[in-house]
């Protein structure tokens, strides 16, 4: 085949060639991304919802533990509060980092716990009449297990055995809800990180409930 091309024909051919090269690069890029890149959950996913909401839950457990450590003398209780504070703060840090890695904001317009709506049996949570509204939040708008500001004030003012009792009661309630949320996270997660951590939170906090109940009964 002899090609005798005129000027414009040659130009067209060169342009077509350039397009072919660009198309090849695009294809190669896609192949690279598809084969090597991780896929991140989106803002509405259960993973993102868990990462946001569980941080809030954890942060309050840290706050309560820091409060009670200053106000009681029992070394065992102070040590438990220390353990809860440090562990949950670090875990909150993990969740913060996931959202950053996923390119998602720490804060979202979505109502808390909406990501849990699909979990079986609504995560076994105490629903009450608010359940009809399709929300898992309490009537006062807080997530289950959270202490109210009034309860926190009570904890701040308490001393000695009163403080120990109040802390254990509040924290057991807090942990029970935490276990439910972690169970939902483990059930609905699409990422390994969320599934692994929520499973460990579930079992770790369940064991802590047992310990705290024993201590409360002994008071």
């Amino acid at each position, binding site marked *: 085949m002899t090609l005798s*091309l005129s000027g414009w024909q040659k130009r067209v*051919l060169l342009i077509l060639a350039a397009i072919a*090269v660009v198309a090849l690069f695009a294809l*190669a890029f896609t192949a690279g991304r598809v084969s090597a890149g991780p896929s991140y959950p989106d803002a509405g996913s259960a993973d993102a919802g868990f990462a946001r909401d569980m941080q809030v839950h954890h942060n309050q457990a840290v706050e309560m533990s820091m409060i009670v450590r200053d106000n009681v003398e029992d070394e065992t209780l102070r040590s438990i509060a220390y353990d809860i504070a440090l*562990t*949950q703060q670090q875990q909150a840090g*993990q969740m913060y980092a996931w959202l950053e890695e996923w390119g998602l904001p720490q804060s979202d317009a979505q109502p808390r716990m909406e990501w849990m709506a699909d979990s079986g049996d609504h995560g076994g949570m105490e629903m009450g009449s608010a359940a009809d509204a399709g929300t898992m939040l309490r009537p006062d708008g807080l997530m289950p297990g959270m202490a109210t500001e009034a309860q926190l004030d009570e904890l701040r003012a308490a001393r000695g055995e009163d403080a120990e009792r109040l802390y254990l009661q509040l924290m057991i309630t807090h942990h029970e809800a935490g276990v439910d949320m972690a169970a939902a996270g483990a059930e609905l997660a699409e990422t390994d990180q969320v599934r692994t951590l929520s499973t460990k939170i579930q079992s770790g906090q369940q064991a802590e409930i047992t*310990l705290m109940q024993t201590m409360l009964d002994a008071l």
Partner: protein
Amino acid sequence: MNKKRSQENQDRQARLAAIQAQQRAGERKRNALIFGGIGAVILAIIIAVTLVIVNQVQDNRERDALASQPIEGVQEYPDVTFDHVDGPVEYEQSPPVGGDHNPVWTNCGVYTEPLPNENTVHSMEHGAVWIAYNPDIGQAEIDKLTELVGSRSYVLLSPYPGLESPVAASAWGLQLTADSADDPRLVTFLTKYIQGEQTREPGAACSGGLTPPGLAS
């Protein structure tokens, strides 16, 4: 006279045809070069992209293989309990690798005296690795173990009188015995299990707990 002109015409035409043939040949060469060049570029891109993909897939597979590779000789104890109790506990393994334990953990570090089992099991729940040695192995071996620990955090090193093997490295639910501090598997054990996947309470601390007597550093 006509014959001469027609001969000249013929010659001219022949020369014209020759020049045209030459031109076409030249164009063919040029076209071949252009198409050949484009083809070569495309081929080069395809080869380069294929190499990248193959390399990446290989890397991924290697990384996964490394992570899942078990260390030879590690014993697993998946059924240990984990409740918090006061007082002494009878453990099935020696040194223990899990089970019921004290609510307060042993702070990580290098110790010259034996550690309480009930607190140290809690440390392993937090992700620490415990390297125990029979005190009869001699100072040279003990020094090597101290060097092995180095500046790593979330690790405990302590003498364990009556230990059946010279050295035993434990993490929650896992144990590796070794005949000397030189065993390279000890290094791998530390890297793999310090705050590793076996940690029951990830994020928990190994300080702020109990410091028994004998803390060397």
